[in-house]
């Protein structure tokens, strides 16, 4: 595990320049990214990774010099403390070593800004990259650490946050990390009593079955099911255009360019392309029908070959690597190969 973490620390060096962190290797470092990275790295501070400690100290000093106030960093250094202006601010203050009055004020802020619908509670984010899932996990964690989380709120919050984990995670690292932190900080009864597939038991290790009945309050259960998801259902939350050049009517064997223009600037836009059976990306003797590539600048250009006679639809999904809301799937480009 140590080796694994050390390789992570080593990798962080690639994103560290001029005393700040950047999002991509070679990018210009930014204050916002630095604050976020420091927030994420705080649990790893001063636990035996000298190289990481050095980077963090330098980055923190850099932010202090710029008089940054950001409650995400209060666990690292109390001097970053700022007035509460968001759910993230309030949640982080609940975790910090601050006066009881200030902590209670943060708790009240969270309770006041709680929203609920259909038996779920959630909080609107202000700065979370992981959106409402991350903000809600942070708020629940803040309340839990402040001793102000009742079982009903926890249950309703989990119902909102953890209603659909795909392959064991939420949409991004940011929101999954927030859920992990929430679960880590929950003080709940351990080794609960349950009836699993008709058998009463005290749970001392993760147990699997098909039907579970809680024999006491506070039993954490994960329900899994295999299902298929359609990535190409139309969605309109990312504005882009896609064109086939020279046109939609191609001769067998003809090459064409698929050009995707992004109309929005987001952190890391990606294009996912699915070709119909009549088109292909030729790679050696292989005819590939999918591609997933970053859109660098404003556009992405891909070469396709008319591989079989027929007609079909070129489908393009453009989405952002970090923002689950930024997904666009168009109706597609009809193409005929004759």
């Amino acid at each position, binding site marked *: 595990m140590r080796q694994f973490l050390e390789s992570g620390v080593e990798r962080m060096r690639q994103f560290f320049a001029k005393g700040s962190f950047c999002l991509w290797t070679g990018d210009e470092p930014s204050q916002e990214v630095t604050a976020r990275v420091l927030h994420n790295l705080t649990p790893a501070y001063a636990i035996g990774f000298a190289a990481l400690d050095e980077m963090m100290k330098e980055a923190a000093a850099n932010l202090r010099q710029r008089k940054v106030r950001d409650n995400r960093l209060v666990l690292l250094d109390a001097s970053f403390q700022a007035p509460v202006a968001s759910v993230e601010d309030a949640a982080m203050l609940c975790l910090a070593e601050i006066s009881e009055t200030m902590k209670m004020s943060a708790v009240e802020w969270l309770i006041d800004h709680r929203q609920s619908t259909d038996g779920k509670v959630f909080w609107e984010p202000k700065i979370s990259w992981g959106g409402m899932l991350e903000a809600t996990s942070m708020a629940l964690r803040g309340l839990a650490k402040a001793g102000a989380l009742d079982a009903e709120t926890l249950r309703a919050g989990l119902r909102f946050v953890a209603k659909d984990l795909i392959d064991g995670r939420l949409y991004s690292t940011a929101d999954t990390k927030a859920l992990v932190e929430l679960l880590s900080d929950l003080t709940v009864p351990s080794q609960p009593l349950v009836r699993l597939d008709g058998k009463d038991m005290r749970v001392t290790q993760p147990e699997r079955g098909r039907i579970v009945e809680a024999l006491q309050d506070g039993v*954490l259960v994960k329900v899994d099911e295999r299902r298929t998801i359609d990535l190409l259902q139309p969605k309109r939350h990312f504005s882009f255009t896609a064109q086939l050049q020279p046109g939609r009517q191609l001769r067998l064997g003809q090459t064409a360019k698929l050009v995707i223009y992004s109309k929005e600037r987001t952190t890391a836009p990606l294009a996912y392309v699915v070709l119909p059976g009549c088109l292909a990306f030729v790679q050696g003797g292989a005819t590939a029908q999918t591609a997933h590539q970053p859109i660098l600048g404003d556009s992405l250009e891909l070469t396709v070959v008319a591989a079989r*006679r027929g007609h079909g639809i070129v489908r393009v999904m453009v989405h952002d690597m970090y923002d689950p809301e930024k997904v666009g799937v168009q109706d597609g480009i009809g193409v005929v190969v004759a």
Partner: protein
Amino acid sequence: MMRHKFGERWGGWFALAMPKDRVDVNGKQVTITEPTLLSRIGNSIRLNKQTFEPVTLPSADVIAGVVTDRKVYRPDDLVYAFVALPYLPGEQVKLELLYLDRPLLTETLTLDKHGVALTTFEGLEIGSHTLRLTSSDGRRFGETAFEVAEFALAPLTVRLTSVRWEKERYLHLQGQVLRLDEPYSGRLKVELLTRYFGDWEPLFGTEMPCGDGTLSLRFWMRWWESQLALRVQTPDGETALVPIPFTDWRSRYEIILSEMGRIWKAQTTPKPEAKAAHGVFIWSEGRSQYVPVCLQNAVASEAIFTLQRELSHLVIVAFDSVHQRQQVHQWRNLKAGETVNVPIVKPFTLLLVGALEGDGWFEGEAVVVHPDQLSLKVQAPEQTRPGQTLTVTLKANKPCRCFLVVHDARLPYERMEQKMSEQMITALRNTPWASWRWREWREWDLWERRRFFLGRAAMVKARASAPMLAAPAEPLALYSVSPEEAVTEAPAAEPELPRGYFPEVVYCGLVDLDGEAEVNFVIGEQIGEWVVRAFAVADGDWMHTEQTLTVSKPAYLEADLPAIASEDDETLVRILYRTPQPSRIVVTTPTERVEQLVEASGELFVPFKGYGKVAGELVGVNDPSIADAFEREVTKAGVARVLSSSLHWLFAGEVLEGETVTVYPSPLHLVETLVWSLVGYPFG
């Protein structure tokens, strides 16, 4: 090489000390009783009042390579990454996986005693991936790229059997075009492509007839810069692309290893009468002017120098630039005609020669490459029937570790030996005195001028003529393989079950080889060519060998289907068949059933709408033992099968039911599961 008079007391590699001189070497006083050459390599020399700083020779680039078993995978495929660093056995290296140019994960590998390692990656998502090999302190050794995509293999296979560069201006290609296992006859569109910012761009294209699968092309090339490839396409749209070996820029370097006597040169491109050693081809060409010592051969385990004149002092510094070690050899009072020997370490040793003769002294330098000491043979059947269990025999002359891959010949792949050759030629080129040139001098001007032109293809003058009637004089064979023997028909079998086992790779792994080893595997059931390729490493040597085998049967039918499709897609899919007797073919798709009587070989087209299963059956009209059948599936596009989970906080008496429910003793147990999911997540 440099000649000095006695009055000149220092040169590039040596300093001349005389009996009355006050001499310090690395701070220690040295008594000189007769004229002596002192090595400056790593030594600080004070000669009377003058101080000469030590000369440092740079480390050679580490000869290293990383390849995957192939260049394209499906999302569920296992990716094998093979790493070879023959001169760093036992070391730890890092292999970083990048997805869409973003770091995904890093794995630390410990190389075995031969300097190789094999690791796997799975569960990768659709898109471009790169594997980057670095030392534990971050020095970059090499990288390789691969794609994860939904794909199908086209029935067309193109295999280059000969690549020749003739008279420095004609690129002559010969090859075979197969449709499944049969030589292709008909019209072909051929295009010569070049790498341009990661993409293949056409330089030139033409249409031509192809008879009996024979491809013979000659391009007149005034210049080229990047790797070339050949794209071949039938009128039915079947397309195959094959990179042309020895056409990248490194292949055009010609490096002078030694000018001490015979002039020895090296290149990565095969050359008639050149000796292959550690991935480069070495030959001698002409002689230099008078030198006091001559190097007999630039490929040797012991460099032998023959003296041309009487020498009072001869010093040879043998420098192993891979490990930064040196050994100084010296002799006194040698006579003309005598020889001296210097041991060579793998893969090559830099030799710095200092010689005192008459009233002057001489400095020279050479690189000697150690000969290969590893031989490797692979024996596999040349033809077989679909789905058979096969045995491949590997033979080596000494204990080694062998990376063996058996795959469908249509899969694009990368050659480890080519990477090693590239690294060798780069290391040789980076020696401090390296003298090298492009093979074609005249091209320099064009290459420089090209920067002022916007059009790329317009600058290229290429012309194809095919077939070529006679090879011009002095052809230079760059690459050749023995022609494949014609496929002979195996005896007919009993009616068979539908073929449905279509893996692209049937074996990939490391084989410990001590003399001979056998590997068994089941070959796939698709009709066509397969490649068995092996790359062995032992004690600083490496060797590659490969063999093709044909999977065939007397009667078959095979479908050229897309990998995925949507409800609205409609494609005309090609069914290729061959039968020794009149037969009936039945093809069933989710929406169609086509039945047809056929003879000999040919193709028929079947409309295919949407996605789903396609089944085909061929049965001899008069002889039911002539039979074949297949089942293939075209999956729905854009669909991902996932594990969907939800978390619940239960109160006493509440009941939950699901496909699988997991109850946790505490939230921390669940945290562990989530953290490992995050570790495998590509972004963030």
